[in-house]
C-alpha cells in the first residue's frame, strides 16, 4: 500500500508510547491496578488568574481555575491541574482538544496568556489499589498520606528518576493519576512493574 491510496477519511490509529504494556500491568499483584488512560486531550493553559480573561476562561471550563498550589479541580469532563501560579494542565476527553483550545484562545483574546496542545506530550496512568501508596513510596519523596495529600492534591515531582505529575483522586489516597513525559513513559512503566514485584498492601 502506498500513501496515495490512503483515503483521508480513514485516519490511522493513534499509537500510545505504552501500547502493548497493559498485559504487564495486569500481571501486577492484586493489591495494585495500573491502566493507561489513552489519548485524553491535554492543553497547557497560561493565564493570569486575577486578570480580565480569568472569568471568560472559567466560563469555558465550567469552573474557576484552582489557584491553591498543588491542587486540582474537577469540572464535568474536565480536570484542571495546577502546575504553577499562572499555569494549568487541562485534561479533557479524547477528541475534545481542538474545540476547547479554540474556546480558550478566544477567552484569552489579546490578553496575556497562552494555550498549547500538549495531548501527546504526556502519557496518563491510573494507579489504584490498597498498595498504590506503598508502590509510589518506593520512588517518590512526597508524603501521600491522606492527611497531608487529600483528594485533589496535584504535585509535580520526581518518581524514581523521572518527572511525574501525581493527582490524588480519592479519600483514602489509594487512587492516583500519574502523568509522565511520553519519552519517559516506558522507563516509568518498567519501573512501576519492577516496584510491584514485592508489595505487602500495608505501609
Amino acid at each position: 500500500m502506498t500513501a496515495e491510496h490512503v483515503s483521508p477519511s480513514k485516519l490511522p490509529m493513534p499509537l500510545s508510547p505504552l501500547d502493548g504494556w497493559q498485559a504487564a500491568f495486569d500481571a501486577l499483584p492484586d493489591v495494585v491496578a495500573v491502566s493507561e488512560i489513552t489519548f485524553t486531550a491535554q492543553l497547557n493553559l497560561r493565564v493570569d488568574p486575577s486578570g480580565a480573561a480569568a472569568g471568560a476562561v472559567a466560563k469555558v471550563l465550567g469552573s474557576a481555575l484552582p489557584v491553591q498550589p498543588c491542587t486540582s479541580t474537577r469540572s464535568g469532563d474536565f480536570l484542571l491541574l495546577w502546575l504553577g501560579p499562572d499555569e494549568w494542565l487541562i485534561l479533557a476527553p479524547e477528541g475534545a482538544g481542538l474545540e476547547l483550545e479554540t474556546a480558550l484562545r478566544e477567552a484569552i483574546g489579546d490578553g496575556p496568556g497562552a494555550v498549547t496542545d500538549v495531548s501527546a506530550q504526556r502519557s496518563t496512568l491510573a494507579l489504584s489499589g490498597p498498595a498504590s501508596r506503598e508502590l509510589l513510596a518506593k520512588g517518590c519523596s512526597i508524603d501521600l498520606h491522606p492527611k497531608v495529600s487529600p483528594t485533589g492534591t496535584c504535585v509535580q515531582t520526581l518518581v524514581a528518576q523521572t518527572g511525574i505529575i501525581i493527582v490524588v483522586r480519592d479519600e483514602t489516597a489509594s487512587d492516583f493519576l500519574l502523568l509522565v513525559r511520553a519519552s519517559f513513559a516506558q522507563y516509568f512503566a518498567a519501573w512501576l512493574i519492577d516496584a510491584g514485584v514485592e508489595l505487602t498492601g500495608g505501609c
Partner: protein
Amino acid sequence: MQLISCPWCGPREEAEYHYGGQAHVAYPHEVGALSDADWAHYLFFRDNPRGPFAERWVHAAGCRRWFNAVRDTGTHEILAVYRIGEPQPELGRQASR
C-alpha cells in the same frame, strides 16, 4: 537530602531544584556604554560570602518557577525564600551588594 521550600509548592527535596547563582545582580543599563572592565565585572564577578547569601533557584522538577533564597553558605541552612519581585528579607541584606 536537604529540603528547600518552594514559595509556591512548599518543602521539597533539593533534587527537584536547580541552582541559579547570586540573586539581585541587575542587568546594567546601557551596556554599550560600559567599559570592558565594567562589563566583565557584571559577567564574571559574584560575591562569595561566608554566611547569608541571596541566590536564585528554580523548582525545576515542580512548578518551574524561579525564586530567590537566602542561604547561609556556612551551614547550608535556607534562611528565607521569596518570590521574584518580592523584596529581599532583612535577613540577607548583608550579603547583597
